[in-house]
């Protein structure tokens, strides 16, 4: 059976805002597998924040079940819930560091809460400062740090008690692109190093592309699509595909008379094989690349090309079938 670390089942959450009733989450179900980075992508107001806050019960759902490691959080006593929360780290868009505590003091906080003895706290804090590369900032106050450094402290603080799960609430939204990149790299690194399961919410496609294994797209409180990131990107017609690629402007291209304009998406191994070349050779047609790109998503290459195929219509048809046999999904954009 497919094991899950976090499972949300049929979560509903409504709240009142200025007299209006807002349906923040409508029948949301998710399964997050151990060791994966799961992204929830959505616009602001889609319910992402509410969703991630339902996982550690910062907000309690109106109905549905929240299972973490098989444990039903909604059934726990306040004290048991606090112990479960100590096993889940959380990082925030605005870092939420304690201004009255030094960097070391911030990282020590969750350990103090969990009742660690002070000599152990000291050693653990030093270890984490080293992990996030801020050993020289131990006695600085958060106000003296840059945004990227603050988020590193946030990550160190979240990791201090050795959680199995990290919840990330728009952790890079307040950072510039370079800093975002380095914070994402750090998240990816700790995900690998500690086999830490990460559930993150974001409105940035970049984040999903850079580090997520799986994704769910949230629109107006509903999950409209979920699956493996590379699979969804490679599937024409999926929301993620449409968000990932700018639509080809078939009309901006003046086609060669008699030619067929197609779009081909591919993923993984297919990106490495000379499929287009062998197709052209085998069916004796011309395949002209008009537009396209191959990019890396995580460790997998995905890409999409706009091709103009010209040759006898029978041969073009066979060539398209050949592409399908190779696991690609050619779409005809224009046929003369």
């Amino acid at each position, binding site marked *: 059976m497919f094991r899950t670390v976090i499972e949300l089942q049929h979560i509903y959450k409504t709240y009142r805002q200025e007299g209006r009733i807002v349906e923040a989450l409508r029948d949301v179900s998710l399964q997050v597998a151990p060791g994966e980075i799961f992204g929830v992508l959505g616009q602001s107001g889609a319910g992402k924040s509410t969703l991630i806050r339902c996982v*550690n019960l*910062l907000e309690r759902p109106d109905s549905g079940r929240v299972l973490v490691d098989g444990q039903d959080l909604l059934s726990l006593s306040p004290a048991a819930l*606090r*112990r*479960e*929360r*100590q096993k*889940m*780290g*959380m990082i*925030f868009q*605005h870092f*939420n*560091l*304690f*201004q*009255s*505590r030094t960097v070391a003091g911030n990282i020590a*906080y*969750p350990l*103090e*809460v*969990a009742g660690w003895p002070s000599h152990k706290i000291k050693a653990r804090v030093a270890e984490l400062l080293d992990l996030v590369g801020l050993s020289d900032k131990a006695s600085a*106050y*958060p*106000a003296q740090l840059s945004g990227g450094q603050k988020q590193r402290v946030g990550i160190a*603080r979240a990791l201090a*008690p050795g959680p199995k799960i990290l*919840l990330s609430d728009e952790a890079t939204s307040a950072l510039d692109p370079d800093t975002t990149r380095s914070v994402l790299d750090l998240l990816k690194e700790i995900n690998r190093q500690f086999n830490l399961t990460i559930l993150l919410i974001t409105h940035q496609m970049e984040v999903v592309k850079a580090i997520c294994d799986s994704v769910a797209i949230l629109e107006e409180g509903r999950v409209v699509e979920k699956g493996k990131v590379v699979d969804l990107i490679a599937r024409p017609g999926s929301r993620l595909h449409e968000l990932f690629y700018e639509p080809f402007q078939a009309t901006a291209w003046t086609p060669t008379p008699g030619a067929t304009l197609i779009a081909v998406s591919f993923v993984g191994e297919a990106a490495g094989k000379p499929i287009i070349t062998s197709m052209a050779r085998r069916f004796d047609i011309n395949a002209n690349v008009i537009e396209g790109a191959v990019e890396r998503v995580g460790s997998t290459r995905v890409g999409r090309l706009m091709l103009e195929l010209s040759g006898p219509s029978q041969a073009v048809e066979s060539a398209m079938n050949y592409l399908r046999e190779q696991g690609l999904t050619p779409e005809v954009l224009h046929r003369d």
Partner: protein
Amino acid sequence: MTDVAKALWIATQETLYMTVVSSLFVLLGGLPLGILLVVTDRGGIWEKPLLNQLLGSVVNVLRSIPFIILMVAIVPLTRLIVGTTIGTTAAIVPLVVAAVPFMGRVVEQSLREVDPGLVEAAISMGSSNWQIISKVLIPEALPSLIRGTALMMINLLGLSAMAGAIGGGGLGDLAVKYGYYRYRTDVMLGSLVILLVLVQLIQWAGDKLAATFTHNK
């Protein structure tokens, strides 16, 4: 020492005694009151709307009574606690009763300025309510709490002058008895100058202390 200087010195000591001792009791009462006003409010970490409304109403009622009336109204309470209604020690009771609700509001305001995101972070790390209060709310609000305490002490200094005038002693009593009724302008001016210096001193010390605990700039 001249008689005037001696009288001023004794009155200063009485004023300081009333202010400092009552301040301690006011802190003891005002801090928990302010904390309760925050945590029991809607959306607070220990939501108790009824208790919150009750506390809020008591605070408002006490704060709306003019001090001079309050002092007379609680004479039986003063006698019960101190055994007498005359003297500097007796003056402390009405001072505390008058200033605790004020301090409660000052503390409430300071704690409300703490970024709710910090409380959320603390909850997400599995903190208990007591840990949130003692490790997050109070340390984060400390500079503001210190400034609020200075404000409260300066208020008490002023109220103690009034309390003293009703048989309590202190600088206010001296200024009224000698400076006003006996036209001793030197006593009047001396009292005022000392009060002014005390106010400046408290404010300066409060600002200084608050600055050493401020780390967000």
